[in-house]
């Protein structure tokens, strides 16, 4: 009985339990937020301090990769729940928000722990449905449009992935990672290659990589701010990128997909950054920035080496931190200044010093400026690219960080630096519910960057499990 509530099981059962309890007619609706906050803190806590290897009773497993992902999920969910408390004014909407975040957590936690292709699909679908509803939460036209577009793209991606599952079932007669990988190693061409292609294409749609990125900016932009944090920080990364990492790591596809991933990654990096340069809307720019950063992860996976996987996972974690931070900043700015149009903002650093500083940290981390966290993951990625014999892609990755810096400096200049814009004199610093996550994420970004020599051996390298 003791195993029945071991860690992997807790991680999917507790949030579900929380949702059920607060929805029973017991007058516990107020506890929804507390449940979410406590659970996400608990998840982070266990991930940081407990030994990672345990098997739950649905064959759920936590290994190094899952551990990093679970930590990121807990972190982003925590941030998003607090931001929702600070920015969503309607009480009922907020209640639904907490519930959906908890359900999305069930989906994401399960997704990173399962070891079966079909169960992977099941949890991806749970996460996605929770996200559709989150995007459409306010039932404003923008949000509904974004949600519908995401739904359609996501369903097409799902169809592709499921066809791949069916083809793999046909080729190997199995759906669990280990058995499929084993069968694939025995030999395979034709059907498995087609399956791999379909699967990767589906996941790239989910991850919002170019050329399948169309839905992403709309969905991110239209979602309520707190939901954008969750989406941009973690949802698309677990549903798309994590699955890709897992499948590459388990050797499901061999190295046949490497050139495709490298190309898709490089194009995403550059196209996303170029598109971000031309944006006026704060959140839309962040969305394109996400596309660009996901490109780095995909590019790193394309190397097909252990170091590449480490780089990808590390960057995924860092991305979860700094992109959530940027979205939190966008949330704070829109909440206080009333607009996201960067051309109508300016000089907010004087009124919102914490947000302004956090934004500097986050943007520098994204651009890969040392000593912040983002630099180290980019370094690993670039070294991995170089060592696996792709110096040109390494150069693209390096030079694209210049583009990243360019659009973020422009953002910082238009929103935070310079003279205070007329009409913004009354702007105050965001409330505590927004400031706490801001500070926490800022500290993590700086801390990971500075403490990296100690973390490298204990946190970063164990992610690789080949």
């Amino acid at each position, binding site marked *: 009985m003791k195993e029945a509530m071991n860690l992997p099981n807790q991680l999917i059962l507790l949030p579900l339990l929380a949702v059920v309890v607060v929805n029973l007619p017991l007058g516990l609706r107020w506890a929804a937020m507390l449940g979410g906050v406590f659970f996400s803190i608990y998840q982070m806590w266990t991930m940081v301090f407990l030994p990672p290897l345990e098997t739950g009773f649905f064959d759920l497993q936590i290994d190094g990769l899952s551990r990093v992902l679970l930590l990121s999920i807990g972190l982003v969910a925590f941030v998003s729940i607090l931001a929702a408390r600070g920015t969503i004014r309607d009480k009922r909407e907020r209640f639904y928000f907490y519930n959906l975040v908890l359900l999305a957590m069930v989906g994401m936690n399960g997704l990173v722990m399962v070891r079966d292709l079909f169960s992977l699909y099941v949890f991806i679908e749970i996460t996605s449905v929770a996200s559709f509803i989150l995007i459409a939460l306010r039932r404003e036209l923008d949000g509904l449009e974004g949600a519908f577009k995401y739904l359609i793209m996501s369903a097409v991606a799902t169809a592709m992935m499921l066809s791949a599952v069916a083809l793999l079932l046909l080729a190997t007669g199995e759906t669990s990672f280990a058995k499929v990988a084993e069968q694939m190693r025995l030999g395979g061409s034709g059907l498995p290659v087609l399956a791999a292609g379909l699967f990767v294409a589906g996941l790239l749609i989910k991850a919002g990589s170019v050329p399948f990125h169309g839905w992403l900016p709309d969905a991110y932009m239209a979602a309520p701010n707190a939901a954008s944090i969750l989406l941009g920080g973690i949802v698309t990364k677990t549903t798309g990128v994590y699955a890709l990492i897992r499948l590459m790591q388990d050797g499901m596809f061999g190295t046949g997909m490497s050139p495709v991933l490298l190309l898709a990654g490089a194009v995403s990096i550059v196209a996303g950054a170029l598109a971000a340069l031309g944006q006026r809307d704060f959140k839309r720019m962040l969305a394109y920035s996400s596309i660009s950063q996901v490109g780095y992860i995909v590019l790193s996976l394309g190397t097909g080496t252990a170091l590449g996987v480490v780089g990808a996972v590390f960057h995924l974690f860092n991305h979860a931190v700094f992109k959530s931070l940027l979205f939190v900043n966008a949330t704070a700015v829109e909440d206080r200044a009333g607009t996201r149009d960067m051309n109508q903002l300016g*000089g907010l650093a004087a009124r919102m010093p914490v947000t302004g500083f956090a934004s500097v940290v986050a943007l*520098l981390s994204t*651009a890969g*400026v*040392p*000593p912040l966290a983002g*630099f180290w993951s980019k*370094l690993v990625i*670039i*070294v991995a690219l*170089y*060592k696996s014999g792709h*110096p040109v892609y*390494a*150069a693209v990755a*390096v*030079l694209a*960080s*210049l583009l990243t*810096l*360019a659009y973020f*400096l*422009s953002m910082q*200049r238009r929103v935070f*630096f*310079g*003279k205070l814009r007329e009409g913004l004199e009354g702007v105050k610093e965001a409330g505590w519910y927004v400031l706490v996550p801001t500070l926490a994420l800022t500290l993590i970004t700086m801390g990971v960057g500075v403490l*990296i*020599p100690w973390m*490298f*051996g204990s946190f*970063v*390298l164990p992610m690789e499990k080949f």
Partner: protein
Amino acid sequence: MAKLIVQNETILNLLIWTPVIGAFALPVVGKVSPRLRNLLALAGVLVSLVCSLALYRTVMAGTVVTVAMETGFGSRLFHADCLAVFMATVSSLVGAIIVFYSWGYISHYDNQNEYYFLVVLFLGSMMGLVFSANLILLYVFWEITALTSWRLIGFFREPQQVVRADKAFMMTFFGAVLMLLGFIMIFDKAGTFDMIQLRERFSSECIPNLAVVLILAGLLSKSATLPLQTWLPDAGVAPSPVTALLHAAVLVKIGVYVYARLLIVTFAIDPMWNVVVPAVAGASAILAAGAAMIETDLKRIIAFSTISQIGFIFLGLAIGRASEMAIAGGLLYILMHGFAKGGLFLCAGIVEQNTHTKDITRLGGLVRTMPVTAVSFLICAFSVMGIPPFGGFFSKYMVIAGAAKSSPLWITLIFVVGAFMTIIYLARVFVMVFMGESKGHEEREGSVVMVGSVALLALLSIVSGLYIGVSSDFAQAAVKQMLGGGQP
């Protein structure tokens, strides 16, 4: 003996971490007591200065102090040899004077907490960079200096200044990422970022020319040398002279220092570069001197002068292992130029703050109202021009003499022309600003602190010339150790 080494390690740690970590305490202290904050800022930099002086004897004896720790990218973190200690002494000395001068200058403006934080952090990371024993750490500190100078250039938050700050940041970042790519190329070949191991690995084999190009891109962008020089005059104009000084007297030296550290000490490079780099440096020196001759903005002139003088330093270092004298000259040049150019910038700062203009055509006759400033300016200018017996003369002489011996004649000629142009444009500035009729600005001498620091720098320019033996001995010892090889 073992005890001594432990002590030296502690000194080295103290030297680097006091300003880096102390910088973060400054804004907190500043909330309580601005005066205490100012003192602590100066103290932080002075700790570095004292520590580097304390290391002087040890490294002169040929010992190398090393701080080691197991990391994912190499076991050595910092090491102190003659070259590093020399550079650290120069930058912390100039840095201390900057902080002292700031007491007077920055007290008129907002955001002082941020200012002291940035300046001290800058100087601290400069120390870290100087002592770095592996390429990644070097790159990290390199970028921290870029970051802090980014915020310092945009310190006054005017839109134009913020744009220029972004430009400077982008340009140096561009160079730096190329340099990083070069580092990774080398890592790919040698499998380590550790400089000592790299030195053994590349003692006979040249590193690929592409890697040299990439690393040079970083160095040239940081040192504001052709073709990546445009950010420096812009950066020098927008903010206060203090930050301008920081860039002109300290920041740009990073590039030449790292050149000495990597391309002379650590890696063997193709002999071709001993001609190509001086040629680029020569072109940079001449063009910048030409620009300085027609420019009318006081601080831009000094900024262009910096670009031009950096060319001389590059010449001295880039002749490479062929001539010990030239390298020693290059190192001395770093010292002399730091004092003299610092003095010039601070004088410009006093002039600007008291007359509210930087246009030299609208200035004149200041020698009567600002005698100390004028004299200091003249002394520093003499040093930069290379008039004996001021410090600048010896370094310039050694560089050019070394070049005459071991590089093509045309390169030497370019630099001789450059030296003459230096004399012309500095004389022009002095005459237009301090001599002639007063143009009727409200003129008065700067505050005691500011004038005092200017006078101190002028004094240092003279003293370093009169007692040239001290610094040149040290420089030559450094060069011996640099070229000696084998001495880890």
